[in-house]
């Protein structure tokens, strides 16, 4: 493995098992450097020579093999998306005589019952406002939870925790009747509001925990300088919570984008179908249309996966903090 050739790089924050507090002078004993150790690390050389390097090599082989096996299903999905159906049925793992075609993508994009072009656009229309509004309202609501005492605080806290554990199915019946009454059933707005209401619970809890870690002294100083609570929120709290807000954005985006149950219940007109909802409809009648399903799946999953890869650190840190704190 040479992709990550800076084992003690300060950027690998979520995984910095070693060389963090001691300024990178100590490598863990198992970490045999591939290059010769620098001169000031001579005592490590001795230990490194004692440790059998064969075992470590074996560990790499096992680790890389497992990681590769783990993504085989996705490799298969990708292969299926770029090959004609006859070759997929013969097995996508046969590489010889492979025909590469983008016909599946074209077909999925312009599918007759569930066109991906429309479904992906709808998914963006629902996801982007649902994420932005949750971020804003979430950090606003989290601020009093972190700083002030107010009546019913404990009760609200308890409610938020309960709803974080509740299954989405539990709110479907009430929301179905509510949206029917408000005239928002089967509209973008209805689904967006439901995603906001559902996401706020964990976002408030998560941001509250983050805000608790910001020292109060900053705000007190600003108060003495005559700043109003709103100015403090805008000029101190918002900028300081940016990393947490990025985590919220990535995780909430993934959740809303990937959600299947809410669109299934609340979006009934075919022209309003969201991408996850459209995928099972691409199956075809006689023969399962694996190529088209695969192409549609790749297009749907590309957005959250790319987002994850770009903002991986925020995603992982947010995930860990959301459940572990």
């Amino acid at each position, binding site marked *: *493995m040479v*992709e*990550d*050739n800076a084992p003690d790089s300060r950027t690998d924050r*979520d995984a910095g*098992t070693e060389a963090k507090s001691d300024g990178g002078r100590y490598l*863990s*004993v198992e*970490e045999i450097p591939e290059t010769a150790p620098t001169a000031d690390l001579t005592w490590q050389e001795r230990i490194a020579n004692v440790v059998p390097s064969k075992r470590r090599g074996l560990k790499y082989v096992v*680790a890389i093999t497992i990681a590769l096996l*783990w993504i*085989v*299903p*996705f490799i*298969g*999905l990708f292969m299926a998306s770029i090959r004609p159906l006859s070759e997929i049925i*013969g*097995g996508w793992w046969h590489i010889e005589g492979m025909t590469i075609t983008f016909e599946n993508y074209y077909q999925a994009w312009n599918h007759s019952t569930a066109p991906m072009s429309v479904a992906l656009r709808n998914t963006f229309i629902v996801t982007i406002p649902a994420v932005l509004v949750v971020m804003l*309202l979430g950090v*606003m609501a989290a601020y*009093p939870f972190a700083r*002030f005492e107010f009546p019913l605080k404990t009760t609200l806290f308890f409610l*938020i*925790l309960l*709803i*974080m*554990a*509740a*299954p989405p*199915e*539990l*709110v*479907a*019946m009430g*929301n*179905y009747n509510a949206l029917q009454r408000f005239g928002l059933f089967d509209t973008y707005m209805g689904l967006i*509001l439901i995603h*906001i*209401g559902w996401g*706020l*619970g964990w976002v*408030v809890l998560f941001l509250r925990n983050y805000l608790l870690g910001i020292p109060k002294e900053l705000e007190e100083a600003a108060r003495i300088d005559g700043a*109003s609570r*709103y100015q403090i*929120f805008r000029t101190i709290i918002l900028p300081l919570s940016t990393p947490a807000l990025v985590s919220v954005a990535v995780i909430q985006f993934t959740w809303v*984008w*990937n959600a*299947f149950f809410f669109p*299934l219940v609340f979006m009934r007109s075919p022209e309003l179908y969201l991408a*996850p*909802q459209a*995928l099972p409809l691409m199956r075809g009648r006689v023969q399962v249309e694996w190529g088209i399903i695969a192409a549609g799946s790749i297009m749907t*999953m590309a957005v*959250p*996966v790319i*987002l994850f890869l770009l903002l*991986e650190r925020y995603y*992982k840190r947010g*995930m860990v903090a959301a*459940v572990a704190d």
Partner: protein
Amino acid sequence: MSLRDHIDGFTGDHKLGEDLNVDREKAIAIAVFLVPGLTLFMIFSVGPIVYSAIGSFYAWDTFTMQDFVGLDNWIRSLTDPLIIHWSNIREFQYPMGALTHNLLWVVVHVPASTFFGLALALLFADLKGRRILRSMVFAGFTVPPIVIGLVLMFIYDPQAGIFNELLRVLDQGQWVRNWTQSPQVAIYALIAGGIWVHTGFSMLLYSSALSAIDPSLIESAKVDGAGPWRRFWDIIWPLVKPVTAVVVIMGIIWVMRMFDIVYAAGGAAGGPNHAYSVLGIEVYRAAFRPEIDYGMAMVVALIQLFIVAPLALYIARMN
């Protein structure tokens, strides 16, 4: 003092005492921050749950609440073979009822994904490129679960599926079948898929716990001649044990919410003859597919909540 000037200017109420003024200004500020978010939260999350809790004691004419019927819906749902199928449970025949299937997920999926998560976290912990290795394992967790369900169908397909090809290569051709459509084994095939996806999440939580361990502890144990086994049980395990509770509880919550994967593989029926239906599927079918039975949908959704609520509160108490 500029602060007081500001407050006075803001409230414009000079008759009240200064303390009260500050309190009032503060109360208004809290309300301004809280109200927009809490309103939406109350309307779209808390309200519907209360609605379901009340509605579960009423009769329903499709979507309209009728008369109070006491525990009628509860008794009807809990004796429904779709939820618990006693005679099939005795013979260990699927379908055994959605609740039983959900509990089977808990019993098989949660220990397995926890174990694999810890194993992979330990394996990757000190390797170069561990960030990439972890992301490869974790990536499945960011993919829409509906895609996971479709991928599983593809893997288990009798012709195009790589799992059946593997069986053929291993000379176990008699086992080749459409795994997701075979009632007696399909649930295990899906659970295997669930483990595949969820292990990445368990691994992530364990990895962050492992990275908090002071490496010098392990080094000194090594110098003292402790083997890998001793090092694990004496140093690593006591430090990651608290995380295990979180991993297990998150696993149970994830499994109890299972919907998309089952829907992708088995549709709204939850497989041939409901062979691997779960509670979420039963809620969906009772509420939104004819014959609509809102009362039963509410009861089943509440059962889901009752199973996970104590666990979530346990996590909260732990911190």
